[in-house]
C-alpha cells in the first residue's frame, strides 16, 4: 500500500516539475522513487496486511508480483533517456502516465474487492490509452490509441457488467464473501453468478491479450511508441494475469467446472493463434506482439491449474517472460534507432559489430522459446508439470506443440544476426546504460534458469 502511495507522490512531483519546466531532475527523482517504493513494498513480506475494509491486501502474492512490476518499470525508465533523446521537451506527462499505469497495475495484484480490481484496471488502461497515442504526430500511434481505447472500453463494459451480476448473485464484491457464497451454494450456483463470472473472465482475457479477444494487441503493440509497447507487453500483461489469477484462486476455485473448459479453450486458441501468426511476421515488433499473445496463453495454463504451486510457477513465468521481453525490446529499440526499421533484415549481421547486444538478444529469444538451461525453459517446464498433475494433458500437448512452433520465429532474428555477417550494417552506438541493463537481464535469465526453485517456493 505504501509503495503505491510513494509512487503516487513521485508521479505528482514529476508532473509538478514538468509544469514549471524543470527537465533535469525528472528521471533522477524516478530513479530514486522507484527503488524506494520497491523496498517499501518488500518490507511488508510475510505480514499479509489488509487495508481499508479488505479493499487492498498486501500478502506475499501481491508483494512478489508488485516487486516484479516495479522492477520492470524501472528497467523501462532506464531506456527512456535513450529512446526520447531527440525529444526536447520535459516529457513529464509521459513519465507520470507510466507511473500512474504502474499504480493501477499494483492495485490489480492486491485487490481484495472486485471493485478495486476494476479501479486498478481502469487506472492502468486509461493511462495506457493515452500513452499509446503519445507520439502525437504519428498516425500509427494515434490509430493505436484509438483502437485500444475503443476495444478496451468495450471490454471494460463487459467486465463491469460481470461485476454487477456477481454482486447481484452474492450480495458482495468482497473476495472472501464471494468465496463463502460459492462454497455454500456449491451444488446450485445461480446462473447469474455463472454469467457474471464468464463476463468478468472475458474482460480479463481481453486485458491479458488472449484469444479470442486478442485482436487489439498486434495493432496496438505495433503502433505504439516502442518504449510504451515494452511497458504494455510486460507490466500491463503481468499485472492483468496476476489479477486474473488472484480473482480465480481466491474466489472461484470451488466452481471450477463452470470456467475451466472455457479457459482451456481460450488457452489452446491463444497458444495456436499467437504462435502461428508470429510465423510469417517480418516485422519484429509485430512478431513480439504475437509472441506476447502466445505467452498470455501459457500463463492462462497457470490459472487453469491453479491448485498446485501455480502461484509460484506463474511468478517465475512472469519474471522469465518480462526479462526476456524487455531485453528483446531493448535490442529492438537500438536496432531501430540505427536502421530506422523494425524489419527482420535490420538484424542482419548484428553480431559482427555488436556482439554483446546480439548475445543478449539470442539469450532472450532462446529463453522465450523455452530452451534449457535458460529461465524460460524452467518456467515452461514447471508450468506444464503443474498442469499435467491437474490432469490437463491435452492442453499441455498443445502448449508443447506451440512451443515447438515458436522456436522457428524466435530463431529467425538469431539467424539473421549471426549468419549474415557480410551484409552487416554499421555498428550501433549503444550507451553504457544499455549494456549494463542488457547484461543484468542476460545474467538473470541464465541464473534463474539454474535455480528456478527459489522463485517457485517463494509464494
Amino acid at each position, binding site marked *: 500500500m505504501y509503495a503505491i502511495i510513494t509512487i503516487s507522490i513521485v508521479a505528482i512531483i514529476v508532473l509538478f516539475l514538468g509544469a514549471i519546466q524543470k527537465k533535469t531532475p525528472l528521471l533522477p527523482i524516478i530513479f530514486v522513487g522507484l527503488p524506494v517504493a520497491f523496498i517499501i513494498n518488500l518490507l511488508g513480506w510475510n505480514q499479509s496486511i489488509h487495508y481499508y475494509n479488505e479493499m487492498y491486501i498486501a500478502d506475499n502474492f501481491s508483494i512478489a508480483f508488485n516487486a516484479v512490476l516495479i522492477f520492470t518499470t524501472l528497467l523501462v525508465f532506464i531506456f527512456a533517456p535513450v529512446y526520447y533523446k531527440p525529444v526536447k521537451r520535459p516529457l513529464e506527462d509521459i513519465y507520470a502516465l507510466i507511473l500512474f499505469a504502474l499504480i493501477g497495475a499494483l492495485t490489480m495484484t492486491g485487490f481484495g474487492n472486485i471493485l478495486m480490481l476494476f479501479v486498478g484496471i481502469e487506472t492502468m488502461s486509461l493511462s495506457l490509452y493515452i500513452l499509446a497515442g503519445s507520439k502525437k504526430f504519428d498516425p500509427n500511434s494515434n490509430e493505436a490509441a484509438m*483502437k485500444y481505447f*475503443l*476495444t478496451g472500453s*468495450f*471490454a471494460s463494459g463487459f467486465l463491469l457488467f460481470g461485476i454487477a451480476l456477481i454482486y447481484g448473485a452474492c450480495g458482495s464484491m468482497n473476495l472472501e464473501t464471494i468465496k463463502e457464497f460459492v462454497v455454500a451454494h456449491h451444488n446450485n450456483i445461480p446462473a447469474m453468478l*455463472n454469467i457474471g463470472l*464468464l463476463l468478468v473472465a472475458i474482460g480479463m482475457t481481453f486485458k491479458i491479450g488472449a484469444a479470442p479477444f486478442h485482436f487489439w494487441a498486434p*495493432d496496438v503493440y505495433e503502433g505504439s511508441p516502442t518504449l510504451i509497447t515494452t511497458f504494455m507487453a510486460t507490466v500491463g500483461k503481468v499485472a492483468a494475469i496476476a489479477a486474473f489469477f488472484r480473482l480465480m484462486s481466491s474466489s472461484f476455485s470451488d466452481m471450477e467446472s463452470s470456467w475451466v473448459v472455457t479457459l482451456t479453450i481460450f488457452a489452446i486458441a491463444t497458444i495456436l493463434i499467437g504462435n502461428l*501468426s508470429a510465423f*510469417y511476421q517480418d516485422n519484429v515488433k509485430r512478431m513480439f506482439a504475437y509472441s506476447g499473445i502466445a505467452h498470455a496463453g501459457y500463463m492462462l495454463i497457470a490459472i487453469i491449474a491453479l491448485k498446485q504451486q501455480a502461484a509460484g510457477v506463474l511468478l517465475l513465468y512472469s519474471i522469465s517472460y518480462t526479462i526476456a521481453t524487455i531485453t528483446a525490446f531493448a535490442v529492438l529499440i537500438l536496432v531501430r534507432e540505427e536502421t530506422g526499421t523494425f524489419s527482420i533484415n535490420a538484424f542482419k549481421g548484428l553480431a559482427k559489430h555488436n556482439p554483446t547486444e546480439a548475445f543478449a538478444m539470442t539469450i532472450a529469444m532462446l529463453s522465450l522459446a523455452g530452451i534449457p538451461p535458460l529461465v524460460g525453459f524452467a518456467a515452461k517446464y514447471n508450468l506444464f508439470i503443474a498442469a499435467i498433475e491437474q490432469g490437463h494433458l491435452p492442453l499441455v500437448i498443445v502448449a508443447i506443440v506451440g512451443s515447438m512452433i515458436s522456436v522457428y520465429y524466435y530463431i529467425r532474428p538469431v539467424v539473421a544476426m549471426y549468419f549474415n555477417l557480410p551484409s552487416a550494417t554499421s555498428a550501433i552506438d549503444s550507451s553504457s546504460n544499455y549494456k549494463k541493463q542488457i547484461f543484468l537481464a542476460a545474467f538473470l535469465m541464465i541464473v534463474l534458469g539454474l535455480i528456478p526453485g527459489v522463485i517457485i517456493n517463494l509464494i
Partner: protein
Amino acid sequence: MSELVTRNYSLVTEYMELISILLLVFPLLGFLAIGLFQKQMNRSFSGILASSVIFINLILAAILFNFVSSSNQTVETQLFDWIKFGDISIPMSLTVDRLSALMMLIVNGVGLLIHIYSIGYMKEDEGVNRFFAYMNLFVFFMLTLVLSSNYLMLFIGWEGVGLSSYLLIGFWFKDHVNNDAAKKAFIMNRIGDLGFLLGIFLLYSTFKTLSISEIAAKASLMPSGDLTLTAITLCLFIGAMGKSAQIPLFTWLPDAMAGPTPVSALIHAATMVTAGIYLIARSSVLFVLSPVTMNIILVIGAATAIVGGIIAIYQNDIKKVLAYSTVSQLGFMFMALGLGSFSGAMFHLTTHAFFKALLFLSAGSVIHALGNEQDIRKMGGLRKKIPFTFALFIIGTIAISGIPPFAGFFSKELILSAAYEHGTGMGILATAISLLTTLYMFRLLFVVFYKPESKEIKANHHIHESPKVMLYPMAILAILSVVAGFVQMPKLFSETQGFDTFLSPVFAKASGLATVSGQALSVQTEWLTLIIPISIIFVLIFLSYKRFVNNKELAVQTGIQHVFANKFYFDEIYDFFLVKPLAFISNVFRGLLDQTIINGFVNAVGNGTLFVGKRLRRLQTGNVGLYLIFMVFSIIAILFFNIIL
C-alpha cells in the same frame, strides 16, 4: 572437554569440506579467467596464472591428503541437488577418501610440474593462452572425476577430461592430421563412454541410487557371480577400455601424440588415461563380485600389455614409442586389477605417473632441442649435446624398466608377486611382459643418445639444452621416480607395506569379499622372482646396446617385424571391418530414411504450419469495427455454450 573436542572436530571437517570445494573452484576460475580474456591477456602471464592456480590446488590437496591419512575418515561434501524429480535424486557431492586424495595429489602434483614445464615449452606458440585455459579446464574435470561421490558426476568429469583431451590433441588445429587425431580420440572414447553410460543406467535400475558408497554397501550383500553385477562391471570396463586405451579401443592413444608434448605427458600418460583404472578401483566391490569380468580384465590387460610392448619396439617416432609404452603399462595395471591387486594397480599408476611424465617431458626436451624433430632415426649421440636431458631420460628409463632401487621396480614387484600368487604361469607371463619394457626403452635410449650422430644431427648447429623452467620440473619428477618406490618395499625386505596399508581402508570391503585368496609365496620363490627378472634385464640391456648403438641405420624390417611395425594393422582392420561398412550403412540410411522419409515428413509439417500461419494472419485486418464484431460473436458463443448447453 569432550564437547570442545567435538566442536573442534566438526570445525576441522567443515574446513576440509570447504577445501574440497575450493579444489574445484580454482582451476575453473583459472580456465574462465584465461579463456575469457585470452585475447587481452599477456602471453607470458597466462602460464604463470595457470601454474599458480594449480600450485594453490596442490597445497589444498596436500592439506586434504594429510587430513584423510592421519584421521582415517572421509570428507563428504554436499554441493547441491542436481537432478530431482519423481523418485530420482542425484545430488552433486564430493568424497575425499584415501583413494581420491592420492589421485588428486598426483593430478595436482604432476599437473603443476607440467604446467611449469609448459611455460617454457609453449613460449613461442601463438595460442599459449588458449593452451593454458584448456590445461586448467582439464585439471578441473579430472578433479571432478576423482572427487565425485556418485557415478553420474564421475561421468561428467569423465566426459570433461575427454573434451579437454580432444581440444588439446587438436590444439594445432591448422594441421588437418591433428584434427583427425583429435576426432579419432573422441570417437573411440565415445564407444567406451556408451558402455559406461549403459553401466550407469544398469546401476541405477539395480540399486536405485548412483552414490558410489551406497552402491558398494548394497552390492556387498549380493552373491558373487551375480549376472547383473557381471553385466554392470562389463559395461564399466568397456568405459575404462576406451579411456585407458585397452584392446580393442587403444588405437587413439598413439595418434593423440599429435598434441603438444606436455599434453601427452599430463593427459595421455600420467592422469587421464589412468581414469579407467581409477574407475575400476573405485568400484572394487562390484568387480570383486564378478569373477568373469575380472578374468576378462586380466586377459585384455595382458593382451594389451604384450601388443603395446611389441609395437613399441618397432616404432621410430620418439613419442609413439612412449605412447605404446603407455598402452603397455596401462595393460599391466589392468592385469593387476584383474588379479585383484587394486593397490598394486594404484601403486603402479602412481609411480608410472612420475616416470612416464618424466620420459615424455624429456622427449619434449629432445624435440625442443632439435627444433620439432621426432624421428629417432634422425637423432643419435645426443648425450653430449644435451647432457641434462640425457641424465633425466636415463633415470626415467631405469625407473620404468624396473631396475632397483628406482620406483618402477617396487610397483612392478607388487604386481608380479600378485601374479605369482595367482599361479606360476601367470607370474612368468607378467615377468615377460615387464621385460618388454626394458627392450623398447633401452632401444630408445641407445638410439637417441648413444648411437653415432646421424647426418641430420651433424648438420644441425642449433641444438641447445632446454631452459631451466623446463629442466627443473623434470628434475623433480626424476627425484620422485627414484624415491617414490620406497613407500612400499617388497615383503622380503621390510615389514612396512606403506602404500598397501594406506589404501587398505578403501579396498577393505573388496578384499573381504574376494573369493580366492592366493597362496603366500615361499621365501625362495620370492627371491627367484626378484633375481631372475633383474638378471634378464641386464642381459637385455647388453644385447640391445650391441644391437642398436653400433648399428648405423635401424635394420630393415622383415616378415613378422613388418606386422609389428605396422601396429598389427589394427587401424587397417578397423577401417575395413568397421568404418567402411558403417559408412555404407550410414549412406543408405541418410538417403532413404533421413532424406526421403524423415525429412519429407518434417518438411510437410513445416510447410503445413507455414500455410496455416499465412491464412491466420489474414484475420488481422486492421479494421477495428471488425474486431468488435469478432468479440461480440465470441462472447455470444461463449455464453451460449456455457449457459444454454
